[in-house]
């Protein structure tokens, strides 16, 4: 086990715990903060994979913009502060869900990840993840998906307005 793997596992553990926290926390503010942690750690994972641009975008866009927006909304709606806004009846479903999730994870881990880790060597070109490379690719090979993604965003915006606007 080399250092790389140890660093990765450490970050992955934090990310996973934070992700569980997002779902497990009853207080929305705490949930959101857990999400911040998760996003941050993910950005570090990207860095460690030499995907600097991805990492920076992750921090800027998600942690910076989106999370702040989340928190704003939570504050404005005054969901924070009061504990136990979301109350649930005791139910077996979360238990089953957890069980099934672990089963899925185990399935993938044992059948895919371990054999892969044993046999495959990571491969990436030298300029992988550089802003220049990403930019060039986005505007050459991947220009169509890039533009379609803008349509996707437009749909999201219009949809949000349609669902939220006051007048009927």
């Amino acid at each position, binding site marked *: 086990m080399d250092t790389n793997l140890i660093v990765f596992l450490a970050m992955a553990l934090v990310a996973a715990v934070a992700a569980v926290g997002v779902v497990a926390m009853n207080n929305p503010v705490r949930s959101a903060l857990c999400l911040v942690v998760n996003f941050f750690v993910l950005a570090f994972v990207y860095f460690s994979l030499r995907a600097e641009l991805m990492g920076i975008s992750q921090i800027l866009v998600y942690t910076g913009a989106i999370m702040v927006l989340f928190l704003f909304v939570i504050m404005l709606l005054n969901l924070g502060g009061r504990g136990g806004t979301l109350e649930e009846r005791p139910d077996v479903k979360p238990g089953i869900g957890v069980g099934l999730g672990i089963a899925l994870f185990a399935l993938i881990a044992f059948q895919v990840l371990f054999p*892969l880790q044993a046999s495959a060597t990571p491969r990436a070109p030298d300029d992988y993840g550089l802003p220049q490379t990403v930019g060039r690719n986005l505007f*050459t090979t991947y220009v169509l*998906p890039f533009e379609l993604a803008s349509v996707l965003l437009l749909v999201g915006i219009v949809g949000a307005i349609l669902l939220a606007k006051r007048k009927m």
Partner: protein
Amino acid sequence: MTPNGYPAPPSIDWLMTMPALLVAGVGIVALMVEMFWPRRSNSAIIFLSLIGLAVAGYFTAIQFGMPDGETFARMIVRDRLGLVLQLLLIGIAFISILFSEGYLREKRIPFGEFYPLLLWATSGGMVMIATKSLLIQFIGLEILSIALYVMAGMSRNEAKSEESAIKYFLLGAFASSFFLYGIAFVYGATGGLHLDLIAEAWKADDPSMRNLLLFGFGLILIGLSFKSAFVPFHQWTPDVYQGAPTNVTAFMAAGSKVAAIGALFRVLEASGVMQEFWMPALFWIAIFTMTLGNLVACTQRDVKRTLGYSSIANAGYLLVALLAHFKSPDKVGLQATIFYLVAYSLMTLGAFAVVSLAAKGGKEGTRFHDLAGLYRRAPVAAGLLVVFVASLIGIPPTAGFFGKYFIFLDALQADLAPLAIVLAVNSAISIYYYLGIVRAAFVAEDSPVRPAMSGPVTFGNSLATAICAVGVLGISFVTAPVFEFLAGR
């Protein structure tokens, strides 16, 4: 690679991308019209949308006979299947728009934004079909889905509409995550996003890569099964169909299914090398989908819910057709699948268009007894409902009969006799609930206490149902030419 070491800009055949981009572009223009004249009636937007769809249809239709190929760095593909399904999607959007305005008005939600969203959803579905790139497929799927989530929740003062939107959103996001996860696996195994790479990577015969590919494929399959409403990924269907505004449900039932089946075909075709693994699984999924859809439909008392389950069952029939094709591609072509998609789209759209007449004054009743007396208030519409239901049941000479019949034959040809038998038995079961719909429309109004609702029959609605009825009845007289056309002969 260009001299400076960067990838060359892709060569572009604009004609291939034209239809989808045009539909998306018209959506943007329509949104601007809504923006600048917000309080006017929606006629301008509708007119613009219909014209745009017609032009896009034209640009799709002229591509028949042109050589197959890929463009935009292999992001967009042109082949007969893609063109036919794109054209079908355009037609579905066209018909949906025709009967939407009257319905939305009666429902008191005449938002101009609906039309751009519908157009974008259409363009999303179109790129899903017209690509062999998993990336494009995913983005197309998301455009389609998000637009549908919004449209499903459009009737904001109805709890069930909001409920359906949020359910669809949550479960759709769940399914999308499977899909995306699968794409990541496939990317890991192939180093690319193009579907053709799957076969190459598989042939490399590296066991761990094969595991990765197969699991990636499985995850993608889950995502698409959700969209196609295969059991056990089907449960959103009745709830969402029931809650969404009826015109949205119509588009969802027809358009979204066409896109999902088209994408599924692309993925299955590319994964033909793994057929020994997925064929048995999909075999059972098909059986469960047909049977469960029909059985539960028998217990329903709401027309839209019933049709929701019927759409699950129909997804099963379509899966049978696909499996028959992949089981023995030499003997069985894709014609039955496409034919049934066309037939299914027409009869479903028609049925929903008639059901949408139940809306009046902001209210809408879609339970069976709300249809009571429809034949008095709108005799023609009720008569056409009989046609659509007859087609859904599969009574000759309707399109539904021929569609099911061809699937049945294909299944037998491909040595999938159990599927053929299950299909036949299920068709018999389905008569029960389909006839329930007709009966509901033809019983007299039962009590004055709960007067049945009905809005006026608009011209758009008449036109839409007429197109569907003519299609459902007419296509059976030209099955042979249609089949030859679909086979590309």
